[in-house]
């Protein structure tokens, strides 16, 4: 397994027999907490929607499904590029690592860009979270839950992109090797998680 943790924390080795280094274990636990976060969001959404189905329209009436489908596809691609980046550094391929990281960053940024465009467009049409100002089709719960859920996901993607930029920066300084690639691995875990959440959100917010 990967030894990066011991390089950074020379006096704090995981106990013999522990397979997972500290940063990675920490990331897993953090993601557990993220699972609870998004589960609670989705649970609240389900409760609100079941109680007031009349606030929602048919899929595609207000929200632009094709555009977001393209965006979803992009995000899934970025998981592939992330896997590629990781595979490269496992082999010690520095150039490949940097290229694939850059690719992931570009796609991630594009995703956020398209989402921002979508927001501007929707707000322009009166699809806002504010109860008093809501004018679009459907009811105001539709707008409020939409911004709540996609907004928190978008924030996660943005943070992910920023972290990826940091990892790329370190990669350019040659911080990762085939022995030590903890940073790449844990940002990868986070990135795949955020991607997975989006697939669920896309399904329930846009398609159902």
């Amino acid at each position, binding site marked *: 397994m990967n030894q990066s943790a011991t390089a*950074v924390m*020379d*006096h*704090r080795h*995981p*106990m*013999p027999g*522990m397979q*997972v*280094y*500290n940063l990675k*274990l*920490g990331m897993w*636990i*953090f993601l*557990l*907490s*993220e699972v*609870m*976060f998004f589960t*609670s*969001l989705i649970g*609240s959404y389900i*409760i*609100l929607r079941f*109680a*007031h189905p009349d*606030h929602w329209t048919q899929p595609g009436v207000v929200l632009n499904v094709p555009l977001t489908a393209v965006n979803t596809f992009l995000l899934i691609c970025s998981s592939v590029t992330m896997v590629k980046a990781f595979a490269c550094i496992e082999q010690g391929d520095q150039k490949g690592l940097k290229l694939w990281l850059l690719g992931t960053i570009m796609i991630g940024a594009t995703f956020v860009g398209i989402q921002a465009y979508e927001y501007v467009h929707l707000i322009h049409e009166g699809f806002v*979270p*504010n*109860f*008093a*100002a809501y004018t679009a089709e459907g*009811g*105001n*719960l539709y707008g*409020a*839950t939409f*911004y*709540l859920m996609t907004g*928190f996901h978008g924030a996660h993607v943005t943070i992910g992109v920023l972290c990826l930029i*940091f990892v790329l920066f370190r990669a350019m300084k040659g911080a990762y090797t085939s022995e030590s690639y903890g940073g790449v691995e844990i940002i990868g875990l986070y990135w795949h998680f955020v991607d997975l959440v989006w697939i669920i959100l896309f399904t329930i917010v846009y398609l159902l």
Partner: protein
Amino acid sequence: MSAHNNGIWSWITTVDHKRIGVMYFVTALVFFVIAGVEALVIRIQLWRPENDFISAETYSQMFTMHGTTMIFLVAMPMAVAFFNFIVPLQIGARDVAFPRLNALSYWTFLFGGIFLNSSFLFGAAPNTSWVAYANLTSSQFSPGHNVDFWLLGLSILGISSIMGGVNFITTIINLRAPGMKLMRMPLFTWMTLVTSFILVTALPVLAVALILLAFDRFFGANFYQPMAGGDPILWQHLFWIFGHPEVYILILPSFGVISDVIPTFSRKPLFGYPIVVYAGIMIGFLGWGVWSHHMFTTGLGPIADAFFVASTMIIAIPTGVKICNWIATMWGGQIRFTTAMLYCIGLLAIFTLGGLSGIMHASAPIDLQQHDTHFVVAHFHYVVAGGVMMGLFAGLYYWFPKVTGRFMDERLGKINFWTYFVGFNLTFFPMHISGIYGMPRRTWTYAAELNIALPNMLSTIGAFIFALSALILVYTIIKSAISGEPAGPNPWNAATLEWSIPSPPPHYNFAEIPTVRSREPLWREEERREIEAVTLKVPDVEPVMPNSSYMPILLAFGVALTWGLVMTGKWWAPVIGLSYVGVCILMWAFEDPFARKGA
């Protein structure tokens, strides 16, 4: 403690888990005094029927801040103080897995607490109780900043707790000394592990509840507003899905403490160690399936009611099992009645009573009578002020010699315990009676016709005895820290690893990491000698420890600042705070904790 550096700056920048533990404890103690004063104000107001010592509005602020402070700024952080100081020592580690993150947890907690309490300066202390039911909290019914302070303050504290949970799970799983298998870990470490899992899973649910509330208040959304299609009961579900696991976050650390203290002072290994561990884990799981026992009066329907009645009664089983284990540990032991042990026995008695009143209102039809009366107030003070706090104070008397190298004064300790015990019962037992007579909670006064003047007077007298006990405690701590009798490495002749190193421990804890071969390593002569040979020696070269850092306090300040700027209502204000946070994170990321200074 580090021999190198002792100035105030060295405490502000420390990443040493022991110092962070001490800071957690002292801070929690200060909040304990503040919340205690709030409690006294409440009790003075309730001294006699239709009293007018304070207004209804002030009363609301008092009980809200009292409850919120006691739970989030006293009971939780005091337990975390022990996680910090004790857990790495119990598992044979030199520090936690992420020392800087640990410091960040502390400072975030401190600023969160200050943030919450600063509301008093604006005359806008939270006033919708610690459970803050919707839609009383909507902008329509709570137009001031009171609720904003509450929800923003709590979300800061939640961040701190989640970071702490991540840190302790990683520490306990990864940093154990060789041979410290899971089933050899001391019970306190076990309960820290379970509690940490509940922390990282329950706090996000509270976060979502608070975020929905923030959307309602700041962005004009309407998740909890029935007139606009929202659902106020949704708040109750989210809050209690967090809230019930939260009560186990509170009690499990204390269960851990007494599971270590009772064997020490009974000179017997814990009876049925695996059962106590499994029961703790089971409580952690089952705690997720009972939340609606707080909501029987909302009209969930008979099926849901029946389910939650049953699950609530089931969860009392593992708790009862543990109580039997502790009693069986004492059975036939050579018991030494130190103050720490008295607090353990006090916990057993008081907590059991609290559990019994819990079982009473676990039954939905009975709860319809008892809900929102002082009976419930009696129940949760028996489990929290009696159970949780007594366990923590047992830990204080027990581990104080390890932390300071000095004993707590036992004579004062006994006075402290007995005033606590008497004051506590005199305060809270009468509330069972006034509650059954129908005295409502969260109401600033009561009618003379209710015939509950006597129990209320007794409660108020008890509260002052209780407060006296707290003062004695503070005095005992200060006095003992300065001039207590010196204690050696293992003054109680205890069995676990933290007692194998000097008191107070050197800043690197273990000169060399020992190997553990049993559950009570220091009680087996041969193993003890082997371990102490490496833990008590002075190393030729001191182990390398991470550098101190001022990033945690700067970053934590940024978080509190950003949250505070949200209240200005200007969209760009929090952006300023966020930029500052961003800069801090960047500097944090580029700081090398092991860089050699001057090299």
